[in-house]
């Protein structure tokens, strides 16, 4: 979209843009322009898949648009609100193993094709081996039973009953371990950023 067409002020804070977007679609585009690449990077660094990261980004902005009227500017950074939505979408993806594209569908958003150049550039956002190494290190810092639960849930896609059977614990305990592990892993990765 042409900047001159949008004409949104670059001086507005993220929170101001979210508030303004309730009546002015240009403000939402401005918000998108500020955050799209950052969120794409946030996702691809966690899922290592450009297509999934692209879907998650599209869904995050569709959800943000849907919820913009509920946003209240209480002095907190608008970026935290965006990351909050992104984290929820990511969490859903890890739980269900699929990107929930409900808001994308509701909005009628046609997610564009991911061309080869985009895919290469998105993958480049992962920072190559350095980030992956950090991930492996972070995983190594999780308690073994927690790490195993995370791996069985995220990688092996087992449901909690199966995880519980393998770990010889109750499904509720398996769920708690997975949740705790993902939270801790996220924190470790953020600390390492």
């Amino acid at each position, binding site marked *: 979209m042409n900047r001159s067409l*949008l004409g949104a002020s670059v001086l507005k804070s993220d929170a101001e843009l979210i508030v303004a977007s309730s009546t002015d679609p240009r403000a939402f585009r401005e918000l998108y322009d500020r955050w799209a690449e950052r969120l794409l990077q946030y996702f691809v660094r966690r899922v290592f898949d450009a297509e999934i990261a692209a879907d998650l980004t599209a869904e995050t902005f569709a959800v943000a648009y849907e919820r913009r009227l509920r946003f209240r500017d209480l002095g907190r950074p608008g970026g935290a609100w965006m990351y909050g939505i992104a984290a929820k979408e990511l969490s859903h993806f890890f739980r269900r193993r699929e990107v929930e594209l409900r808001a994308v569908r509701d909005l009628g958003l046609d997610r564009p094709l991911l061309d080869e150049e985009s895919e290469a550039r998105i993958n480049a956002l992962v920072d190559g081996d350095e980030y992956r190494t950090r991930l492996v290190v972070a995983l190594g810092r999780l308690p073994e039973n927690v790490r195993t639960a995370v791996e*069985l849930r995220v*990688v092996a896609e087992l449901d909690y009953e199966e995880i519980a059977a393998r770990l010889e614990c109750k499904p509720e305990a398996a769920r708690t371990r997975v949740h705790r592990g993902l939270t801790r892993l996220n924190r470790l990765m953020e600390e390492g950023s």
Partner: protein
Amino acid sequence: MSEIPFIHDLGNALDTAIVRRTSRSARRSGGRFQRGRSPRGVALTFVVVLLCGGGAAAAALLTSSQRLADGSVTCFFTTSGTKVSTRSPGASGPAVGQSPTSYCRKWYRLYAHAAGIDADTLGFVACRVNATRVDVYVADGRPEQCQRLGERSLPAAYAAAVARLRTLESRLDAIQERRACKSPQVIAAEVRGALTDLGFDAGRIRLTRSHPTPQMLNSPAGTGGTCGSLIFFPSGNAPSARVQLFPNSQLVGLTVGPPQKIATFVYRASGALYQRSYSHCYTATSIRALVSKAFAPASLEPRFATNAVPRGGGFLPASEKLYKEGCVRFEAAYVGDNSRFVDVSLEQRTAPSLRAGELFPPASAFRP
């Protein structure tokens, strides 16, 4: 501004969706008619062809081994499920027509590097978890590794099923990549032939018109030709060739439209024209020149029809201003007449409106 083209495209798609949503809201509140707008100014002609199982007596579309080969593969990094090293969720996914170990090797390489392991020296073993899932582990060199992990070895027919699916994919790719002009019915017959040749039960063919929207499919524009190819639309409306197998419902889904390369080209060119003409003022002459230039690389000759926007149409304010000033803008493009022409719908305030109930200009309205 980001250097990633996708980010730019997604932003534009978001703008378009928001404008559509805004105009729908306005229409609801004002009770006025407004036609549905095609996504980012692009409309192609589609027919969804379903190759259906011929009832209860028909054999299954896929055998159990083929269903497994058509299912998902999860790649473990070590020798057992409880000792997997974490990898990306992308390490699990559909591996249609691929050897599971080949599919997993790239993930091993990715993660093994970080762990200081040479993945190329490792052996792998693939195990059956359930009817549609295969797990791949690093081989521990001892017999019955799958059984020790609580899983089963792959069925004897699995390798043949993988090869059969791979052959089917190649056959279908060849059908959809061929540039020759064929009707959707001919293409469907070729797909059925390929399925039958390879021992799949293709059932009978039923044509439906349900994608992406009935309005688009009912468009009289761009339908003068008989060319078609198989096009699948993923989460966005960007076209890509694909045939989908639905073993549970015994269906093979084919979306028929222009050849993929042309469809993709028109999709992209239309998006650019849409955005360009919404932010710059064009005359009837200059926009024709712009459109002709845009479609020239695909050897598509444009034919034009110009109409006024129906009452209640909602657009970005700056675009609305240009329209009210008399500027002409691009609305949509439809590939037609065997991919020789592209029917281009333009919008101008002083042009005649579409008749009541018309969503698109009639085919006769398009002129070179």
